[in-house]
Structures are given as C-alpha cells and as structure tokens.
C-alpha cells in the first residue's frame, strides 16, 4: 500500500536533493510513496506569527486532500512542514469546535483519520531498524555522524515529538547506527538554528548555526545529519558566511539523512544529488572509502 507523501516547498527548491534522495531510498526499501495531489504550503512560521486560523487552515487543507485521496497516513521530510501538519492535526483532534471552525475556512472537511509522521519516525516505526540493517550494502564504517534534530522535530513535545525524550532524542541516532555509522552524543542536538529568521535576521542565524557547527566539531563529528531543509539551509548554505564571521572554517559536510541512507543502501552517489551541497561531502566520503 502506498504512503502519502508531502514534499513541502523546499523540496522543489533549496532542498531538491532531499526530495530526490528520499524517493531513491524509498524505492530501495520497497516503499511506495504517493504524493498528496495539489498540496499547498504549510504556512511555516510566518503563518502562526500572523494568524492562528491561517496557521491551522493551510496545513489542514493538505490533510483534507490526502484524506480525500484515500490515504491513511501522510509523511513529510521537512521538520517545519511536519510540525505544522502535526500541530494542526492534534489541535483539531483535541477540539471539535476548532475542527468545525477550520473546516469551514478550508472548505474541505477533515475527519482526523490520518496518521501524520516525519520521515525519521516513519523509518524507525514503519520500516524498522532491523529491516534497515538488512538492506545496508555499504556499512558506513568509521563515519562519525552527529545527528541534528533542531527544534521543530521535538517541540512542543506533547504535540509533535518523535522521541520519548525530547531533550535528548536518539531516534535518528538509531537510524544512523543501523547504517553502520557512529552517532556521537553531543550537546547541540536540539538547539535552534534560527530558521525562521534566515532572511530577516541573517546575523542571528549565522551566530546560532556557528555554535552548532562548533559543538559538532567538538564532538569530533565527520558530518552533521539533518532531517529538515531549513536546518540544512542554515548549516550548509551559510557555512562560508559563518567562516568569515567567526573566523573558523569548519568545512563540515551537512548531509540529509536520506542521503546518508542512500550511500549505505547502495544508491549511486550521483543519483543522490549530494553534489548540490555548498560544502562538499566528497572528501569526507572518499576518506571513509564510501566513494
């Protein structure tokens, strides 16, 4: 049976490779993805900073569409999209009045039947670490991959968290370890990169992202694994700005979890879109004998 897939806006732009590699990996795992037809933007942070109703209505339209399409789950790779979809789903599940109100705004009824998941907990729950291990053809030996979760995958914990301990999530670490890599315990797993201020207050983002890179370097990581286009955008695309502002060039490759998986599962390097990154991972991969 097909799983509903919501790519999100960034998958069509700055995080194209996330989308590409996700689809490849799913093919490898024998998972059929079905895109939610005619999906719209989840509204991200500007929506809830502007109107509560808007921030619920935009994601709810997607959920309603998916439901209409006959899907019973919806999976997304973007943490921000996941956060918005999940919050909207949980909010209307709690309050029938809100559901009625937002349904009126959306114009498509949502019946609360969907299971909303993020790629990461989709992997660990629906696929399972054991199955993942079986599928590994190229174990990522000697790779120290620091898993970065960011805010939106873990907060607010009562609504969205994908892990039992929102302060020290390990779900991605488990996946990374299943691939054969080492996932070090490090301090900035859930620290904020400032995503929502990416364009408006780039200075803040550069500072916060710099601290994350610093912590990862401190943990001796070879790369940082992300599961969100926004985290990626800040950590990868702004690395040169960070270097000039902080005076330290970390040159730390930032990889999407799907890309790392792709490598381990034997997807051709070129098909994963890793070369689209600002900070090249080629050296690191070559060093570890993965390329």
């Amino acid at each position, binding site marked *: 049976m097909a799983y509903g897939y919501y790519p999100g806006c960034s998958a069509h732009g700055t995080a194209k490779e996330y989308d590409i590699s996700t689809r490849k990996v799913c093919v490898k795992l024998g998972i059929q993805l079905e895109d939610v037809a005619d999906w719209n933007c989840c509204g991200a942070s500007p929506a809830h900073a502007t109107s509560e109703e808007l921030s619920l209505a935009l994601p709810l339209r997607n959920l309603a569409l998916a439901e209409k399409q006959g899907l019973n789950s919806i999976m997304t790779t973007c943490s921000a999209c996941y956060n918005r979809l999940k919050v909207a789903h949980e909010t209307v599940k709690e309050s029938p009045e809100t559901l009625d109100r937002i349904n009126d705004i959306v114009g498509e009824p949502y019946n609360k039947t969907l299971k909303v998941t993020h790629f990461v907990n989709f992997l660990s729950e629906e696929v399972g670490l054991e199955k993942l291990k079986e599928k590994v053809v190229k174990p990522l030996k000697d790779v120290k991959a620091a898993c970065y979760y960011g805010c939106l995958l873990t907060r607010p914990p009562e609504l969205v968290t994908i892990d039992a*301990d*929102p*302060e*020290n999530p390990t779900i991605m670490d488990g996946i990374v370890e299943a691939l054969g890599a080492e996932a070090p*315990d490090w*301090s*900035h797993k859930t620290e904020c990169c400032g995503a929502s201020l990416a364009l408006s207050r780039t200075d803040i983002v550069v500072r916060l992202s710099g601290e994350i890179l610093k*912590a990862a370097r*401190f943990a001796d990581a070879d790369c940082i694994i992300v599961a969100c286009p926004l985290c990626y955008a800040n950590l990868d695309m702004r690395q040169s700005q960070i270097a000039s502002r902080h005076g330290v060039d970390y040159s730390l490759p930032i990889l999407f979890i799907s890309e790392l998986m792709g490598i381990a599962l034997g997807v051709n390097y070129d098909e994963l879109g890793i070369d689209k990154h600002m900070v090249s991972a080629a050296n690191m991969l070559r060093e570890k004998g993965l390329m």
Partner: protein
Amino acid sequence: MVESSQNDNIEILTYSEVEEVGGYIGNFEVKIRKKARLVDLEKCTGCGTCYQKCPVKVPSEFDMEMGMRKAIYVPFPQAVPNVPVIDKEHCRMFTKGKCSICQKLCQADAIDYEQEDEIIEDKFGAIVVATGYDLFDASVYGEYGGGRFKDVISGLQLERLISPSGPTGGHIIRPSDGKEPKNVVFIQCVGSRDVEKGRPYCSNVCCMYTAKHAVLLKEHLPEVQTNIFYMDIRSPGKNYEQFVQRTMEQFGALYIRGRVSKIYQRGDKLIVKGADTLAACQVEVEADMVVLATGITARHDSKEVATKLGIPYDEFGFFTELHPKLAPIETVTSGVFLTGACQAPKDIPDTVASASGAASKVAALFSSDRMSMAPLVSTIDTSVCSMCKACMEVCPYGAIQEEEITLRDGTKKKQLTVLESVCHGCGACVSTCKSSCIMLRGMTDEQIFDELMAVAQ
C-alpha cells in the same frame, strides 16, 4: 537510633513489612512479614568477616550508588541492629547456587540460607504511620542530562560524598574523574514547584539543605566557588534565615535568581545555561559539578500502604490528615496517626515535633482501659429478615453473625445479629438488604428520605 534500640519498651522489627491491618481503634489486628534475613539475629556477633570476604559487589543503596556494598552487608557501620543481611537477588548462593563463603567463615554459625519469611500476628491499640518519603528522581529532567552526566548529582549523593563514613571517606571528588571540583553549581526546585513535572508543591527542605551543602563544601574545599540557582529562598524556621545569610556572607556562595534551562557537557566541564532574572540576562557557568536539589515526593508505594491502613492520600500520594488545621496528626481512621514526611514534605524539626505529637495522641488514647465509640451502627429487624444473608456477604468487617435463639415456646430460631463494636457503620448492608430490614443508626433510610423530601418539594 541507639536510644530507641536500648529502650525496653520498644521492640524493633527490621527488614519487616506490615502485611495486613484489620480491626479498629484500640483493637487493631496486624500481620507483619518478617523477611528472611538469612542471618540469625541472635547468633551474629557483628564481627564483619562475612561481608569483608563476600565476593559479590553491588552498588550501595545507602550510599546512593556512589559506592559499593557486598551481597551480604550492613548498610552502614552504625546500623541498628548491627547484623548483616543477605541480598538474595545478588548473593551467589541464590544466583549461581554455590559459594557459601560467608557461611564457612562465620564463627557464630549465624548464616542460614534456608531461613524463610515469618509472619507475626499481633494486636495493637494504635498505629503510627512514619513511612517517610522518596527523593524526586531527577532523571526526568532531560535538559539536565536526564542522568547521563556523571557529575550532575543529587543533594543526597553529595551528602554521601561529604560523609566521613561515605564511599570516599568524606573526600569530595567528582564522580567522573575523582578530581576535586572548583566551580560547583547548585540548582534548586528540581522536582519542586514544577507543574510540568507533576510536582507543583514546595518541598520545604531544599533551600536549607542547599545552603548547608554550600557551607559544608566550602568548609571541605576552601577554594571552591558555589553558585546557587534559586527562585525564592524559603527560610522561615528558627535561625534559618541567619543561616542562609551566613552562607552568602561568610561562605561566599553566589546566589543567582533564575532557573537553569540546560546543562551540557563540553570536555570535562559542564556548561550550565541559566538566567539571572535580576540582571535580566542569560548566565553561562562552566562548572565542574552540578548538584540538583531534588525535592521530596511521596513514597512510591504509599498508595498500597494507605489502602492497607484505610487512610486517604492526596494526588501526590502523601497521606491526608483528618483536618489540615485542627487534626493534623489524626487520620480518618481513628487510631491511625501520621508523623513525618509521609504526610507532607517536612524538615527535621517539624518531623520530630509531629512525632512527639503522634506519641502524645497515642499516650492519651492509652491513658484509660476503655474508650467510648459512636454507636452509629447497623441493627437488624429480625422479624422481617428473610435470611438471605446478603448483608453478611457485603460486610467488610464480618460484623453480622448468625445466632440461634430460643423462642418462648421453646423452639429454636436462627437469626442474624450485628456485633456493635465490630460494625463501622458504613451502611453497605443497609442498601444491600432488599427488604429494608437493616437500619443504620443516625442515618436511616427514613432520615435520608426525609432529607431528600425536604428539598424535593
């Protein structure tokens, strides 16, 4: 401790648990399970050979797992009674089926692996509940490492480090590398005043024990800097406030008003991210050790104890007194009294005071041979009873009994009767009797009906 062990009127049953409580004030019938110690209390001389030679090491509960004990052990050197106990869970005789080193070495022949639990039945006139408290388990604070950082310890763990009889012999060192800490952070209200963690109440003792820790730490390590994150300093006891002030003035503790949001490890240091709300800024401390002032919570098994004793408890599991102001020691079950932190977080002076209070309640109860009791019990109208005995079956006290009477014409008749002193007046029998032939004095059907009719119309 010693005083209570030497008093002739006191019988101490250690390693024992109350199994069942029956009866009522003045006449409780209690079953006590005396767990198998596997060491004969009478024979043991307390020489200590057994635990010196025992090959199994287990983290010591008494030392808050900061040190080790053996599978046969005395929790601490001054224990009363000073007789070891065998921990079946870890002892090789029980895990592997062989060893018996202690038995072989024991001169007094006190080791008995066959010993079994013993049930003691006894009668008591009053019960004092002094079951104490548990410390809040700080591992639910993921932001403080959730127990992952070795150098983030609880207050009681620090107590063991400071104690001369503790695992380090009173030498204060970091658990991770054994180095002396230079910069120590204390965080208060861990598991107290925290709605999110389900503990909205104040634990009463942490402000003061943290101040004490700061003082003791400074006394042991004159170079140390203590930083205390607090929300409010609660020091309403006698001489308490002066003590806190001395902690700041003479012992150089830095009090920072604000909570800590996150602790993370960087190298061998702990980075503590807190706030100083007075300065309206974030504070970052590079600490060697963090001490969490964990709060007091009800014992994990307090609800079972409460059920055994028939006393209520609050939403946190603390036992509820009869009235918060006017009867703070009594419970709804007459003859059962509360003392200490099983009732609410209490410090030592409060605990001692409440213990003496409970004792005086008991002494007052014992001052005469008989006591009067409310007569509001059930009575049976035997002339209309159909002897289905449903009332007997629902009575939790066995207060309804069958008796045989001789009628005037000499014939015998069986009928039911209520034992007045055994009946508690719950009325379960009354509502069970389909033909309304049982009446509860003071709360008859008619009275309740009249009350109802007084409003219905």
